């Protein structure tokens, strides 16, 4: 009797799991499997190793798969699930399997050299996250395709400087919503926005720096006390859109109109763009996952053909004049405001 009951429960569970999986595949373009591949493989095979699969990286992944298909290369993608050791394993497997190139979205940018070592002679392209020591790119078979994080925050700062100069203000106070503390993107985005404000002659002081962990609910919880206790500030600067949207929710819960002062984000997610259009968020910065995916595949093909990574690219070349400049393909960030948001919806 008891056994029957247990069996019934197990079956219910299994059915449920089945239902979930079914819903998953009927959803929008997602990537539930651990490995996916496209392309005929006429021109060889390549492997793309993702650090993980969030909304942004999944879009990047699909763009890379599509670019490879168009180029006639068989591209297999793997998810290292934020495990740096697993990433090295995948690279070694790819090299042993005779891949013409490997594209990697590094889990740990500090460990870039060990990834290069694992690849040996095989061309290796870093995508999205640059190595923390850019000199790694000096090796002939190594390239990088991504966006310059120094500029994303800078766009926010430029926008805010314009906005406040229009009001005749040169001294402002801000609330800063930071991403996961210590991540490269968090550090660079914070530094970028403050540098831009300084460059444009605005004296900005922090009311409080809050750690919102890139999460909407966390940002909402963290900023609510500031709003309800009536502290004065001129703008809210957020390291990403999710936290900016959390701040907007918190404002509305506290009966404060979010359109009366600028709230700025980064990422230009679907919801972020909609908030800019609705006038609740002042601006966001678009990071182009499609460009990064496509650019990385092109750079890998270039390296495999013995050319420089940025050879004939439609994207931006590096102009710093360093030894590794030709290994870099920059995909520019784009500021998005009410004026041009229609292009991003």
């Amino acid at each position, binding site marked *: 009797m*008891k056994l029957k009951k*247990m069996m019934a*429960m*197990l079956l*219910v*569970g299994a059915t*449920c*799991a089945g239902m*979930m*999986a079914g*819903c*998953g595949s*009927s*959803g*929008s*373009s*997602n*990537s*539930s499997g651990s490995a996916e591949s496209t392309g005929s493989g006429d021109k060889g095979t390549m492997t793309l190793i993702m650090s993980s*699969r*969030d*909304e942004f990286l*999944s879009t990047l992944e699909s763009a890379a798969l599509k670019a490879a298909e168009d180029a006639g290369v068989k591209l297999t993608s793997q998810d290292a699930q934020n495990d740096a050791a697993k990433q090295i394993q995948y690279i070694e497997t790819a090299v042993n399997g005779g891949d013409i190139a490997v594209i990697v979205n590094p889990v740990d940018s500090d460990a870039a050299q060990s990834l290069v070592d694992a690849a040996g002679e095989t061309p290796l392209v870093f995508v999205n996250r640059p190595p923390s020591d850019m000199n790694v790119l000096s090796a002939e078979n190594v390239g990088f395709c991504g966006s310059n994080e120094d500029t994303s925050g800078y766009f926010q700062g430029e926008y805010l400087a314009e906005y406040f100069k229009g009001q005749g203000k040169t001294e402002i106070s801000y609330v800063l919503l*930071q991403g996961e*503390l210590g991540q490269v993107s968090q550090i660079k985005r914070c530094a970028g926005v403050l540098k831009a404000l300084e460059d444009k002659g605005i004296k900005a002081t922090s*009311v*409080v*720096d*809050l*750690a919102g*962990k*890139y*999460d*909407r*609910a*966390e940002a*909402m*919880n*963290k900023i*609510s*006390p*500031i*709003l*309800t*206790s*009536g*502290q004065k500030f001129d703008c809210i600067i957020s390291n990403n859109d*999710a936290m900016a*949207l*959390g701040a907007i*929710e918190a404002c509305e*819960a*506290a009966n404060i109109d979010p359109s009366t002062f600028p709230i700025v984000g980064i990422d230009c*997610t*679907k*919801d972020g763009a*909609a908030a800019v259009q609705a006038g609740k968020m002042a601006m966001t910065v678009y990071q182009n996952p499609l460009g990064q995916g496509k650019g990385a595949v092109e750079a890998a093909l270039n390296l495999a053909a013995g050319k420089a990574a940025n050879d004939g690219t439609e994207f931006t070349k590096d102009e710093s004049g360093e030894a590794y400049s030709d290994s870099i393909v920059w995909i520019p960030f784009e500021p998005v405001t009410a004026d041009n948001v229609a292009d991003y919806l």
Partner: protein
Amino acid sequence: MEATKKGFDIKKFMSDNAMWFVLIVLAILLTIVRPAFFTVANLTTLVSSESVKGIITCGVCWCILSAGIDLGPGAVAALSAVVSASLAQQADLPTRLIGLHLPAILCIAVAMIIGGIVGIICGWLVACTHIHPFIATLGSQLICRALAKMYSSSPVSNLDQSFRNFAVFKVAGIPMVVFIFLIVFIISWFMMTQCRFGKNIFAIGGNRQAARVAGINVEKNLILTYMWCGLMAGLAGAMLAARTGSADPSTNGLQYEFDAIAAATIGGTSQTGGICKMSGVMSGILILGIINNGLVLLGANDNLTQVIKGLIIVVSVVVDMRKNAVRT
């Protein structure tokens, strides 16, 4: 031993409610430093910020009471959040994740059913296969988080206002999510103190063999415990989506189970099972709330918040263990 002396009762009262005194002291200190802390507006903010985690804590404390643990609630909340949010998206939205649109109350019911089913499976694993609850629920955590990401790779937003009202609609200036948390808390308190079920779990947590010998159906009661915890996690997920207006499969509910375990532990729930008081659990929830809220008002670094949280958890457990050791 000294039960006849009058002073003993005060001492016992003090030690039983030590965390409430800590809470009051913290609140007074904060009010002195930052008067903005003790305002109706800020206290409402504090409680509504902690409500979602509070709902989860009302479930997790039962698992701990039964000498188990549940590591799943955060991920279960994320899964039920994305599923219920996808059902509650505005009907005329062109980018709806799935075609089906349900009335708000049914969306919340679906969220709770998902949580309940996960809970039943975990409970069955714990009770009938005798694998350690830590392992069983670690499995459910990983599976539910992955299922949530499979269900939707991006945040699900543009939710019906009728659904959102379950969390954000204000009665007398207080958001609904707070009332829902209080209702859940009262139900949990009632079950623990007034129902046979509560007594059974106390017995199972204290000594499983003795409970079995005393004629308690251990398996059934354990499954019900984890089911209750799952139901609460599911409800919390729906509330999370309703409150923030969006359900994000990768960041929703991240580490909420640890905050819930921390709150229950600070509130005097014993990790070895058999000891738990709902009033203590409430003090734990509020102490974490005061720390989160107060340190923001003081403009403290987030890392400092984590250090203080960690210290309070460890110290409260040490105090608790000493207290219990003295008594036995």
